[in-house]
């Protein structure tokens, strides 16, 4: 097992490096000169040249990459063109909000999905199964940005129960644990939970139905175990795969919350990305993507490292 852990850890190094290369190159596949983002279009030639030298754009790409990577490792992701503030600070304060939303939304989705999936799998091919499956199909089919709008229409515009925008009263970007802020979390979290709910329902349903059809379950029943006791055996067999899927989904929630954050003006990384794209703020764009990817890679690593502790089969090899 130690070998597996080491191997998995080692494998993360080239992947992380490759991610930094892609993030670096993103700026360079962008049409036009990356300078356009920093220099005014009508800047005189000598100013452009001076800026080029200042930003190092006159060096060959590998040199630029090495310098950029060296600074990034030291925590310097450059300065936002729009605000002039360091990108690292902007992104880090936004990441917290994104994580909060993803964890709360994910937890809701995983809980609902597990419940529905267990019901559907246990009552396989009955009416309960069909209802649960229908809910899960809706979950994976609904464009969540549209669902966010619908929820806003109903609960904010019509009923005026919950706020539609921001992370706190008065557009405060700083989260604190109180009722006024929690009210802002409700709609985005529900919106974000729908896709993982649908996917977890499907996964758990298939796993439970499959495990229940295996002969060891019949043997347990024949032994006289009650349903509850059988269920613990089933749960143990379903858990490793289900948890692995949840880990990946949580990663998608963190990296993919841009749409929901945009709908609710939630001050997270997705919202930041949106701003960066529209202002052509390339350092901010690059920094936000890099940080999100590193979080995603780290999360995937964590899931894989935890796997052998949950799944006894992996402990053996």
């Amino acid at each position, binding site marked *: 097992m130690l*070998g597996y852990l*080491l*191997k998995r850890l*080692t494998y993360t190094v080239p992947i992380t490096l490759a991610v930094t290369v892609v993030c670096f190159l993103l700026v360079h596949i962008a049409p036009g000169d990356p300078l356009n983002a920093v220099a005014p279009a009508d800047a005189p030639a000598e100013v452009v040249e001076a800026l080029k030298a200042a930003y190092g754009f006159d060096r060959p790409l590998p040199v630029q990459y090495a310098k950029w990577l060296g600074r990034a490792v030291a925590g310097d992701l450059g300065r936002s063109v729009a605000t002039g503030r360091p990108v690292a600070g902007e992104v880090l304060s936004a990441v917290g909000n994104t994580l909060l939303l993803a964890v709360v939304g994910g937890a809701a989705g995983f809980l609902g999905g597990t419940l529905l999936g267990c019901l559907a799998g246990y009552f396989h091919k009955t009416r309960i199964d069909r209802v649960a499956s229908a809910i899960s199909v809706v979950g994976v089919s609904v464009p969540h940005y549209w669902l966010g709008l619908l929820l806003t229409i109903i609960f904010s515009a019509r009923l005026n129960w919950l706020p539609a925008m921001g992370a706190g009263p008065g557009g405060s970007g700083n989260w604190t644990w109180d009722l006024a802020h929690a009210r802002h979390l409700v709609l985005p979290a529900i919106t974000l939970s729908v896709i993982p709910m649908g996917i977890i329902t499907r996964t758990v349903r298939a796993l439970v139905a499959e495990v229940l059809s295996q002969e060891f379950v019949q043997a347990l029943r024949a032994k006289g175990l009650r349903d509850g006791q059988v269920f613990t055996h089933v749960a143990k067999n379903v858990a490793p795969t289900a948890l692995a899927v949840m880990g990946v989904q949580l990663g998608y929630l963190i990296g993919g919350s841009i749409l929901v954050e945009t709908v609710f003006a939630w001050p997270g990384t997705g919202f930041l990305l949106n701003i960066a794209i529209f202002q052509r703020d390339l350092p901010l764009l690059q920094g936000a993507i890099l940080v999100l990817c590193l979080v995603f890679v780290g999360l995937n690593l964590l899931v894989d490292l935890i796997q052998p502790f949950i799944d006894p089969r992996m402990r053996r090899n």
Partner: protein
Amino acid sequence: MSLIPHKPAADRGGPAQPLLIVGSLRKYFPIRGGLLGRGHGAVHAVDGVGFQLGKGEILGVVGESGCGKSTLARLLARLIEPDDGEVIFDGDGVGAADGIGVKELRRNLQLVFQDSFASLNPRMTVEDSVAFGPRIHGQSAADAIRVAHDMLARVGLEPSRFGGRYPHELSGGQRQRVNIARALVTRPRLVILDEAVSALDKSVQAQVLNLLLDLKEELNLTYIFISHDLNVVQYISDRVLVMYLGQVVEIGPVDCLYRDARHPYTRALLSAVPSMDPERRTRHSPLTGDPPNPVNPPPGCRFHQRCPHARTVCAAAVPKPVEVAPGHRAACFMANPASGYDSSPAEVGR
């Protein structure tokens, strides 16, 4: 009656020339693993196998699972490349500068696999599967189907009934007949049957074995018959080759070898065959323990750790095969009076 325009390749070397001469064939499979996928040793799957095969002969190959039988089959067919050793087909070295190429070899040599289902493309009808080889060999589609039908009829499957079916619509025995037809349709001279009847029911097994014997006479074939079933091997073979951990431990005419096996491993295998006579039931397991790890085969004779007659010499030196009777050779020090083994075979033989 044959409509087959595709004639078998001519017998080039004459009847005295062995159809196949195999010399010190070797294949190690490297084991990948570790941080950077570096090799951590190698499985010694086939390690210095050599034998000759006469024209029209049936050579049985027996041994425990994992002893390298299937690897040997795939090496002979060049589905995997040997690390070392030579194969001479009817006087021509395979892959040698003045010999025959792999393509030419495969015109003369075909394989029948154990798993009748996995050896047929599930999306192809039976006749298309059988006709595939002739098509590749340049026959027109209509001619290919014609020879396929002819061969299906020879293996006992009515072409008009079975030709258009898919593999999952056939029984295991029928599928194996299709595989035999597919192997024979290009008129090979040597057919390697890799556990070809092992997965079949006993009654079906007998039918297929008899079919194989009939086809051998009809089509002038030579067989290498690989099996772990000693009864079947005894029934069908002219000569038998016994493998242990990638090496030949004994080879000889079937009657001679079954009556008077000289290698302790062969004796153990033969005494493990269940007897029909209740007075002669097997009371003790003739072989104890698992075969040693083929990654680190033991030094000296590979069998010495499990051999009831092992002496110090067995762990120290590798026994060379010696002739114990005409055409019967065993790689055991007990069979070689000059080996320094300190007990005569007669005393040990029980």
